């Protein structure tokens, strides 16, 4: 301890000696809003570049981007909720898939009323989240291992149920319309996404519960000793995450007009990229709601521009993979600057 403080002391004197100059403030602005600036540059480039300028900022393209990414955004928020408490949930994609398959199977195949099928699908999502939370909070299992196992098992269940094909042949028109049409020029699914973003922001950053989750991510032993009910908070976080994944699954079925075993799980990667990108902005080093939304749409706008440029089918995967690693590295660097160490994964 002595060694450490003596080693650090001179640096601290140095830091405090100089008042926060312009360069320091610029650096701070850069870490907080750098991604937004980059976002603006990317949009400006594709909007002005000859080959993409005609389509990129057209209403049709924007509406498609908004509609296609509403589901991904909610899945990302599901990842964010547990990550706020320091637990990574790799099963959100699979839970989204299960919820989507439940709706399509119940409504399309078994002709059960939507008024029953949709709440059931969401409750299934919550129960799966609760199960994850129970295993992790009560038995102190690693969240990566638990949710990876859960994800794989759920994928198996979906393959068995769907027999590997697309299900939900005769979905009611109202559900399909909700997935594909607009209200006032904005995709209807966006009207679900926006309140959910606000709810997540409010719950995670403006309620005692959100503070508990942040405290647990920082130090769960200290959290318990200041009176936070750590097990219950983790359980609630996973259940909330399951709820969000359940909602995302319903929207997924509405949007794609069917369900299969692979679409839901495929969203996990995009969601993770969005959350980690989000942790590099607004509150650098900490996963946060607005950052996550920015992250998701940043990736979407870049990929859209690249495909308008005529990039091959492998380009989005390459870009997504690189952006996840880059975002996770940057977020960890910011977290370490706050003294937290690499807590994100």
């Amino acid at each position, binding site marked *: 301890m002595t060694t450490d403080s003596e080693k650090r002391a001179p640096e601290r004197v140095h830091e405090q000696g100089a008042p926060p100059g312009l360069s320091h403030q610029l650096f701070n602005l850069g870490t907080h809003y750098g991604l937004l600036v980059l976002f603006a540059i990317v949009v400006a480039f594709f909007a002005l570049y000859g080959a993409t300028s005609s389509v990129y900022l057209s209403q049709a393209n924007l509406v498609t981007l908004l509609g296609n990414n509403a589901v991904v955004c909610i899945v990302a928020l599901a990842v964010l909720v547990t990550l706020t408490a320091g637990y990574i949930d790799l099963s959100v994609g699979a839970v989204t898939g299960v919820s989507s398959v439940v709706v399509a199977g119940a409504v399309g195949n078994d002709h059960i009323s939507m008024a029953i099928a949709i709440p059931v699908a969401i409750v299934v999502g919550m129960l799966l989240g609760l199960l994850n939370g129970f295993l992790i909070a009560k038995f102190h299992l690693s969240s990566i291992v638990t949710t990876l196992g859960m994800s794989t098992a759920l994928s198996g269940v979906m393959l068995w149920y769907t027999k590997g094909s697309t299900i939900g042949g005769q979905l009611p028109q109202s559900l399909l319309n909700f997935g594909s049409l607009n209200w006032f020029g904005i995709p209807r699914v966006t009207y679900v996404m926006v309140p959910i973003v606000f709810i997540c922001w409010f719950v995670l950053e403006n309620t005692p519960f959100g503070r508990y989750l942040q405290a647990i991510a*920082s130090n769960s032993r200290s959290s*318990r000793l200041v*009176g936070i009910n750590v097990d219950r908070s983790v359980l609630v976080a996973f259940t909330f995450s399951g709820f969000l994944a359940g909602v995302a699954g319903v929207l997924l079925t509405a949007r794609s007009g069917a369900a299969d075993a692979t679409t839901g799980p495929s969203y996990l990667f995009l969601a993770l990229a969005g959350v980690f990108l989000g942790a590099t902005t607004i509150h650098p080093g900490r996963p946060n709601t607005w950052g996550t939304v920015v992250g998701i749409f940043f990736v979407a706008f870049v990929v859209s521009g690249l495909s308008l440029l005529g990039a091959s089918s492998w380009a989005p995967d390459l870009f997504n993979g690189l952006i996840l690693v880059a975002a996770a590295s940057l977020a960890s660097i910011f977290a370490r600057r706050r003294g937290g160490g690499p807590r994100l994964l």
Partner: protein
Amino acid sequence: MTMTAECALSTDGVSKTYPGMRALDDVSLQIYPGELHALVGGNGSGKSTMVKLLAGVEHADPGGTFTIGSHTVDAHRMTPAHARSLGLRFVHQDAGVFADISIAENLALGRRYETGLAGRVDWKKLRHDATKLLERVDLDCDPTAILSSLSASSQTLVAIARALADFEEETLSALILDEPTAALPAHEAHNLLAKLRVLASRGLAVLLITHRLDEIIGIADRVSAFRSGHLVGTVEGADITHDKLVELIVGRPLSAVFPEMPEPTEDAGDVLTVDRLSTGPLENLSFSIRRGEIVGVAGLLGTGRTTLLRTIFGEVAPRGGTIAIAGRPLHAHSAGDAIASGIGYVPEDRGRDAVFNDLSVRDNLLAASIPKFWRWSGMSTKRETLEAGRLRTAFGIKAPDLSNPMSSLSGGNQQKAILARWLRLEPSLLLLDEPTQGVDIGARADIYAIVRKAVEAGASVLLVASDFEELARVSDRVIILRDGQLVAEVKAPDLDQHVLTELAYKG
């Protein structure tokens, strides 16, 4: 001890300047062969800097010299290789030993594994060498045993044996240990120092850096004290007393460090009543604390001191007996229950159990009061910031910016923030487990001033401290735990560290 004319190690006019700060100023220190020389000082006093300069990992300002045996080198030209070839050996605070592998392998890692045919490890030779090295430090154990099976002090001895591995008896040399006892309980520290004493008596010069004063009294031949980068004095023999050392380190007499605590009012009611409590190693423990009273708990490590506090705080379920707060039975099943009953707990291991390193100082200060800043429209960050600012002033926490992470504060200021976290709740009972561990002696004075203020305001305190001097000075009354029992209770005027030490070890 005989002082030979030639020093084993001496520094002459050594200084070290960091940007904006003088870490060492013109230090001239002599260490003789056969001497156990302790180096003491508060955090930031420069003692660790001196070790780094000697080891050559940091470079001194030009001008000073080191003399090792008959070789004199410019202090600013010292390198690790140089230090090694001149016969200096270092054991750092984090001894760099590996708990899960055998003692022999730990020793071999310092050099290399002896190999036989085709690069195969020659285990037999490895064991043989290990046994010889362990003999040097008087450690009688099986070299094939896993290191973690040894006591903490013996593990440090293994690290010392490793440091001395290629040490030739005839090379005049010095062994330098940087806070080897920092993580050891008192009796383990004592064992280790006794072994160091034996090593020194064989002609080795041993330089021991420590901030635990009690352990070196009666064992060290000489003690040098650093304060703010200056060597403020070297004392020897009978002059090595606790009071003298504290005065050197702090620059003021000891009475100014521990404030006088107010006498508890005689007819005040009991705040805590523990009746026939059995928990952990403790059996049938009964005692009570009155309002405004500070009760110390003395006992060796493993006597259940911490378990007692954790049981009262609802973290450990007792096997039997009852706990009552202000006459009402306490059924705490979690920290939350205990907090609701007006109890606060400052745990022993601050880093592990109390701080949130990457959260802001503000969040750390208010961690036990989160729901109090909640309204329907969200957390009131404005009120939180105001309250955190008030606490910073009231508790004298040196934090330039409340939104900085907790890890940016020094240990002493972190501990003040933890105390502030609890005291803002105005608890009726404060459980303190080693509240001054790892903080320098100046911050220690601040911490006890804070405790005194809380007591004056009506709080009661149950205090666990391994430093019996501290315990005796701060407490109104001390209960002594031994072998699972409450064996004695000591009040002023009988209360002093010797009585406590005696009672804690043997009745």
